[in-house]
């Protein structure tokens, strides 16, 4: 990092907004996965979109690499800057407008997810994608990761809620993707950009679709003697065609962690697994669906099914779920977080296999996940300072991931590849498929300066470039 760069950036954002000292940069060394630590060469914290554009142009001029970061709550190491510039966007937190007539909002990238829903409440609207980190994570980060959340089962993920984005490309060009005012022409570059994990450019503003608050909501808590019966209940509910707003599972290890924490939700601590099921929509016909879901749970062997009595009770049940990762943090110094997805009919078999792997390798798996989507989060708490335990955890994770891929699944449903899941990309995608991904990245960022080294293993991209050069030479 040269002093010249620091001075040029300071001229844009002010001296106090360019961080260079080790102590100041420490904050940015990790994201939500503290197992990874990388120190940026410098952090720059713009407060306006013009400042962001000016910064990106300075970086483009110098061909410098950079990593955009929102709240740093990601769970894939995706926002880590390894000795490159970190572009912090959390100060761009303006809700530019809420258009209640059309149920949409324009927001800056640093707007916190839950704050948008809070601001939309007075219009009877909310923003549906609800990652568990929603009280901290930002819309810009949600766009980068194509974030999900429990309620994406019925309402769709970030991709289904973004109408348009204004982005600055790594070369400094500002473009609009999608359209907030009617349809757009050409390729679906909006769709391609969402979930590109910061590799295609930086969001300056997002136009997002809001949902109308449902007329009625029912939240059920079903508890089971075995994970297998809970998994069968999930399969039965899905197969019935009833689309729950959310359908979440937590196993006994997770329940124990939550109930021992300040987030205690009153879950039955002796249950092998619980399902948290939410049904919403018009009041008409809702009780009929609730009754059917309750019956599916009982048929699968539920010991008890209870329905939240009031909004406060419902909020408590959800808090336990949403803070489960935090609760696990109390038990072990380190946590690995998985995010694989399997076909929903394979849930019982895959969960049984995960249990067997955990037993064989003597690791403590906590399952807390979006069962309705088949999106697993088998997390393992451990002590990374114990090399033998760390090795067993690593081995267990690799085997769990392979089991999910073998079941026809994928390696990440909502957290992104980042750094954490790079090693599994080769097992999931063919070489030509990763070559195609590299080609797409090159369209937006030919020099691969934006979030370098993430998503697609570097060897894949370099092979592709070598091959492309060879082809050009031959033609």
């Amino acid at each position, binding site marked *: 990092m040269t002093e010249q760069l620091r001075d040029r950036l300071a001229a844009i954002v002010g001296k106090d907004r360019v961080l260079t000292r080790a102590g100041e940069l420490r904050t940015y060394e990790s994201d939500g996965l503290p197992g990874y630590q990388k120190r940026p060469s410098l952090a720059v914290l713009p407060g306006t979109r013009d400042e962001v554009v000016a910064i990106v142009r300075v970086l483009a001029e110098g061909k410098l690499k950079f990593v955009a970061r929102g709240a740093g709550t990601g769970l894939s190491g995706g926002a880590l800057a390894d000795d490159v510039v970190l572009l912090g966007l959390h100060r761009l937190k303006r809700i530019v407008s809420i258009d209640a007539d059309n149920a949409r909002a324009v927001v800056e990238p640093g707007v916190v997810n839950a704050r948008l829903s809070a601001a939309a409440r007075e219009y009877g609207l909310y923003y549906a994608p609800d990652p568990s980190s929603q009280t901290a994570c930002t819309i810009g980060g949600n766009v980068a990761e194509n974030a999900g959340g429990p309620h994406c089962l019925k309402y769709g993920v970030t991709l289904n809620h973004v109408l348009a984005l204004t982005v600055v490309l790594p070369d400094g060009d500002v473009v609009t993707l999608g359209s907030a005012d009617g349809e757009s022409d050409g390729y679906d570059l909006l769709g391609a950009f969402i979930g590109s994990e910061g590799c295609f450019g930086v969001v300056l503003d997002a136009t997002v679709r809001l949902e109308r608050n449902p007329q009625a909501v029912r939240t059920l808590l079903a508890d089971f003697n075995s994970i297998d019966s809970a998994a069968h209940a999930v399969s039965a509910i899905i197969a019935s065609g*009833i689309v729950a707003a959310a359908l979440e599972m937590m196993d006994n290890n997770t329940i124990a962690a939550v109930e021992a924490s300040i987030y205690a939700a009153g879950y039955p601590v002796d249950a092998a697994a619980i399902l948290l099921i939410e049904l919403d929509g018009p*009041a008409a016909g809702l009780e009929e669906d609730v009754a059917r879901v309750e019956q599916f749970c009982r048929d699968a062997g539920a010991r008890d099914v209870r329905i939240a009595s009031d909004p406060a009770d419902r909020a408590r049940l959800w808090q336990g779920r949403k803070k489960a990762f935090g609760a696990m943090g109390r038990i072990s110094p380190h946590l690995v977080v998985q995010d694989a997805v399997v076909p929903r009919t394979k849930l019982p078999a895959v969960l049984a296999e995960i249990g067997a792997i955990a037993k064989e390798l003597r690791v403590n798996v906590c399952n807390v996940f979006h069962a309705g989507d*088949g999106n697993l989060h088998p997390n393992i708490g451990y002590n990374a300072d114990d090399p033998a335990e760390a090795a067993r955890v690593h081995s267990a994770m690799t085997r769990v991931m392979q089991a999910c891929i073998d079941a026809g699944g994928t390696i990440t449903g909502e957290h992104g590849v980042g750094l954490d899941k790079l090693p599994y990309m080769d097992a999931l995608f063919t070489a030509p498929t990763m070559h195609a991904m590299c080609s797409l990245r090159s369209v937006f960022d030919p020099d691969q300066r934006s979030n370098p080294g993430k998503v697609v293993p570097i060897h894949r991209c370099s092979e592709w470039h070598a091959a492309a050069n060879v082809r050009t030479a031959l033609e």
Partner: protein
Amino acid sequence: MSAAISERIHAARSRAESLRIVAGGTWLDAGRPCPALSTLDLSAHTGVTRYEPGDFVLSARGGTPLEEIERIAAAHGQWLTLDPVGRAPGTIGATIATASYGPLCSAFGTPRDHILGCEFVSGTGDVVRAGGQVVKNVAGFDLVRLVTGAWGTLGVISEVTLRMRARPEVDRSVAITVDPNDVVKAWRWLRDSEFTPLAAELLSPELAQRIGLGAAPVLLMRFGGNEPLVNAALTSAMVLGELREQTTGIWNVLRDAHETMTVSLRASAKPSRIDATWAYALALATPVGGFASATLTRGVVRCSMPSMPAVSASEVHVTLERIPADHWPAAEARRGTRALDERVRIAFDPDRVLNPGILDV
């Protein structure tokens, strides 16, 4: 089969030949004039390759007719909630390639909201397997959305994996005659209602008359769900006018009516501007003997006409949906990032082997 497509593309590249991708052939007239030398025929490339009803996920080869998917899914009480304009032999590959949709988009969105994965053969002959077979997936960059709506110009879609849905327990359709000045009222009712119809289309008088619903504007709505829900929705809709019960077959009749016209395009703007968009669309369609139907909740109006009208610059955006080659306008307004589109095209089909000219990139 994808290996054969790849060989064909390699051969075409080496001979500096271009290929027109064809399967059902129902969309041949739809895109810009495409001066390809040879045909890449996928009409034998059909069949459902994987279907696990319990997962609500189905995979099919690109040339599979929509009606085949419909038939197979119906046996399990499921359906693919895409109902593009076009004749029955239309294929899933063409539906995805053209991102075509119909009235069901009110509740279920467009092809980009349905497709979970696909296999395509790029213009360099690479066989790419994008996305997956699960309903939630963020592994790697999103090549699936990229080829959806790309009109085959980035790759030949050889297989797709789709999200399926359960057919509703009760599925009822009603027609309501509305006052021509009540477009906004109908839109507002839909926006504020707790009930989400499976489909809600406002038909121009000419269209209503053509499908036997009288000579005034008609709001055609379809509600699905359990019995109490559908009953409540229909009762609630009575504030808009008298309900005339229809069979679900009416939606095919509507689709076929659009199909009989030579040209169709979509006018769109913010949903709250639906009255202006509607007026704009009627002004285009009516003088040339055409008609229109509006998907009110999305602010989109489909106009179908015997010939291409003059499209003037307006705040309403016009998407050219199906225009035969000899009806294409000399110039058109285009929205989007052309420079990026060009770079995408070159990255995936550098020699413009696939459907050259069909998009303006």
